[in-house]
Every structure is written in C-alpha cells, then in structure tokens.
C-alpha cells in the first residue's frame, strides 16, 4: 500500500507561489530565522532546505514539526515553494483516542476484579461510619443564622457516602478523553496546516 494514503495523518504538504522577482536564495534567506530556533538544525543545498528539530521550545512557531524539506521549483507561472513537514505530535494525537479506549477497557476489567472486595469494604466502612455523622451533631448557630441547609438525615446519606468513597473507577472519563483527542486531532490537523502556510507566506512576502 502506498504510504501516502495514510501519511497525511502526520505529514503536512503544501506549496506557495513566490513573488515573480524573488530568487531561491532570497526566499530561503527570508525563511532563515524560522530555522534558527533552539533545537533546530538545518541545511541548505541549492534549491532545497532540510531541517530537523529536537526538544523544540514551546514558543517556537514551528514547534509542532520535527523535520521537513522545503524546495523551490520552477512552475509554469513562476517559482513555487513546496514544503513537506512531519509532525510526531499530530501522529500521537491521532493515536491518543486508541490509548484512551484501551484505558477504558482496562478500567472495565479492573472494575470486574474489584467488585467483590469493594462491596465487602463498603459494608465495613458503612458500619464504622454509622458511629457518627454530620446530621448527628447539631448545626453551629452561626450556620443556622446564615441559613445553610441542614445536613441530610442518615439512612439516605449513608448510601451516598459509600458510593462516594468506594467509588469503582468508571470507564466514562476514558471515553470522554478519547473523544476529546479525536476532536483535538481534527482541529490540529486543519489549524496547524493553515498556521504554517500563513507563517511561510508572511515571511516570504513580508517586508
């Protein structure tokens, strides 16, 4: 299978037309500051620029990318900058939902394993807690005067408490995070594509 069918997940490609009179040399000179960031190494060989990034700063405008190739080609309508950038951050974000779905599955297995022991512990704790409850102690007069609701009578509250403390881990948060990362991936893939294009354009055309 051709890798291009899937590598769009973490590869960002694009092209930008250069100004008619702009030479490759001048275009790369304008882009140069982007590759002088901490953790970035780059090499220029005639019409091609290759860069690598490691431990890139959060403040680096291209921090999402780990490497790439920029080439200036002669098109029918003039010179064109073609770029091909790779981003592990995008790849990991794409895979993150799988991780969280896995965690959700793990949670369900753990919940099953914990069931007998936690029920027993819940009962024991309930028996002990029955010794004293907020409702057993009269409310402080200040709270009464200020109008705070009185604590709930035992019985019902006991059940709540057991639920609160001995809560079995739920798989819901893991599914929620799987959805969050799926959304984040889509947003990131579109946003970062646009941002880097805008960044290159601004550099190439800017004064």
């Amino acid at each position, binding site marked *: 299978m051709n890798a291009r069918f899937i590598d769009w997940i973490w590869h960002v490609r694009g092209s930008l037309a250069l100004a008619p009179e702009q030479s490759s040399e001048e275009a790369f000179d304008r882009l140069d500051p982007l590759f002088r960031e*901490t*953790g970035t190494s780059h090499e220029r060989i005639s019409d091609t620029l290759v860069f690598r990034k490691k*431990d*890139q*700063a*959060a*403040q680096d405008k291209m*921090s*999402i990318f780990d490497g790439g190739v920029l080439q200036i080609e002669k098109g029918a309508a003039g010179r064109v900058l073609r770029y091909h950038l790779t981003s592990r*951050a995008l790849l*990991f*974000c794409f895979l*993150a939902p799988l991780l*969280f779905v896995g*965690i*959700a599955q*793990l*949670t369900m297995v*753990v919940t099953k394993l*914990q069931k007998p022991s936690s029920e027993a*512990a819940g009962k*024991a*704790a309930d028996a*002990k*807690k029955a*010794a*004293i*409850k*907020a409702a057993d*102690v*009269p409310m*402080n007069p*200040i*709270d009464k005067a*200020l*109008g*705070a*609701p009185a*604590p*709930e009578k035992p019985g019902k*509250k006991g059940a*709540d*408490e057991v639920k*609160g*403390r*001995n809560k*079995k*881990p739920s798989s819901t*948060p*893991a599914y929620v*995070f799987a959805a*969050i*990362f799926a959304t*984040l991936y889509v*947003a*990131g893939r579109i*946003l*970062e594509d646009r941002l880097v294009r805008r960044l290159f354009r601004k550099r190439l055309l800017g004064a």
Partner: protein
Amino acid sequence: MTPRRDIGQLPVETRYRGDKMDGIRVGKRVIGTQAPVIVGWENIPRVEGGPVKRFVFTWFQPTMLFALLAFWFYAPNSIAKASTAIGIGIGVKVLLLGLEWVNPRYESWRLTWKELATDLFYVGLGYTLLRIIDSYIGSDVMVEAIQRSFHWDKFRWFMGLPLLVQAFLISFIFDFGQYWMHRGMHNWYPLWLPHSVHHYITQLNINKGAVGNPVELFLIGLAIGGFFDFLPRAALLAGAFGLAIGTYQHINVRFNSPRWWRFLFNTTEHHSLHHSQDYEATRSNYAGAYIFIDRIFGTCIDGEAELLGMEGGRRMSIREQMTYPFTEGWKTVRVRYARPALTTGEPTMVAAE
C-alpha cells in the same frame, strides 16, 4: 519573614551584565543571578486597558471565590454533590482558558495547539489511569484505612464548628501537608527526581498543574484530602477554596490581585518565580493555596518571572517526561557507586601499539 524588608531599596529587575546577572538580595539569599526575575509588587506589570477591563481583572478572583463559597454554603443537599463540583471545576477551567485568550500575562506563554494537547494528555491520565492506581495503592486506600481506625467521638467538636471554619481548616491542613511534601521534593533528591519533570514546563497555562511524571502525580495525590468526605458540605467548600485559589498557580492571565489576596494566597506571580530558570528563585513559594504558610516559614518571595524551566528552558518531550526520573536516578546511582577507576576518567588499560 525576611524577604519584604529589603525589596523597596533594591533594583527593579535583575539586569544582564555580559553573560552574568546581578541578582537581587532577598533576605539572606540572592535570586536572579542565573535568569531574569522581578521582585516586589510595585515592579510587576499591571493590567493594561480601559477601566472596565481593569475592574474585571482586579475583582475577578475575589468574586469567584465568594460566589463559589456562597453557592456551596446555600446549595440544597440534592445539588451539593461531588458530581456538581466536578462540573463546576470543568466549567471554571473553560472560562479561565477564555481569559487566557483575552488577557494573557505573557505572549510567550500563549497556549498553542501542541501545548494544549500535551497538557490534556496529562489531565486525561489523571482522570483515568491514576484513578485506577489510586484505587489499589493510593490515597483511596489510605483514607479507607484511617477512617476505619478513627475514634469518631473525638471528632464531634470539629463537626460543631461553623461550616466555613471547618472548610478552611480542611483546606489548610491539606495545604500544610502539600507545603512540606513540596518543600521535601525540592530538598531531597529521591523526591526531586519525579518532581523535576514538572519544572521543565516553560510556560504557565491552566492545565499545566497536571503535567509531571506519573510517580509525582501519585505522590501529590497521596495527600488525604478525601478523608473529610464524611462532612460533605465542608469538604465541598474546602474544594471551592482549592479551585478558587490554587488554580491561579498555573495560568496565563494578568490580574491586579488585591493586596490582601496576594498577601494570603498563592498567585501566578509567586508560582512563576517558583518555576523560574533561576535556581535560587525556585526554592521559594511552595504552598499550593495559602502563601502565608511560606511567609511563616520564610520561603515566600513576592515577585514574578517570565523565563521558566530547567536547563535554560529546554522543553521535554512526553516520552522523556515519563522516563527521566528513572534514567536520571540510574545515572546518579552509577556515578555514586562506580568503582574509583571508572570515575577518574583515566583509562585503565592502554591499547597495545
């Protein structure tokens, strides 16, 4: 408490002199010799903009605190539940993310997609994997054990106190424990190793508190906050103190916090200094919510820093954040217990020519 006295007579900001910086004397120590820091409230930038904006960013923090306290004080029992608290917590975080957008403290701390994704990865771990681990060996188990062996009748006096006093005491006890755990992390190498990862963050944003090696997140979670869950309303009010104060440790929003607020409570200013690239500055402001604990023990410095992180602000990848305490610990052990011949740097054998 030594710091405050000297501040007025001292330079505004640490200044570069070639590759060295002067630093500022604060009590017995000199901070800001390795990276620029600001010391003293009068030197910290203020909110810029019209009167409405300045008003909002001056009174936002106290208003949120009192609104949350009032809500939990008066909410009917059917609403005063942990699930409501989780919902409010998420809502407040989203609101604060909006404020980061509108009124950032520093442009260099601006939240990017990559930073958001990284932070959310840790938040996700906290809500999922760490919960599972906690249910086996963490705070849940500890709280359970303590609650079972507790002599409940001795606790009646506490339950008779006004709700807000109970809530403050719960959050204060919790924060006092956090203070010493945190100070321990900065002073004892085995605890520093897992905590060091959190100090590699180079900007403060709303979810940055969740970033760190999972071992540290587990250690922090050991604080027995859940112990008070038999006092639901007081525990929820205590949570409101945490949410409305502790959240501002990691946030990229410029506030004009009122004087009384910043005297009592930890602020972004305090915590940015704690995360500064300057080593001496990081050894201050350990409390999570109540900075007056630092004032009591002489570790408080009122100031701010923009350049954060370790090793000159090197950003650590998630992979390294996961392994760093172990690889670094292993390196240290090897150096310490290596045979002398290996540490001298001299070759033990010379190759035959």
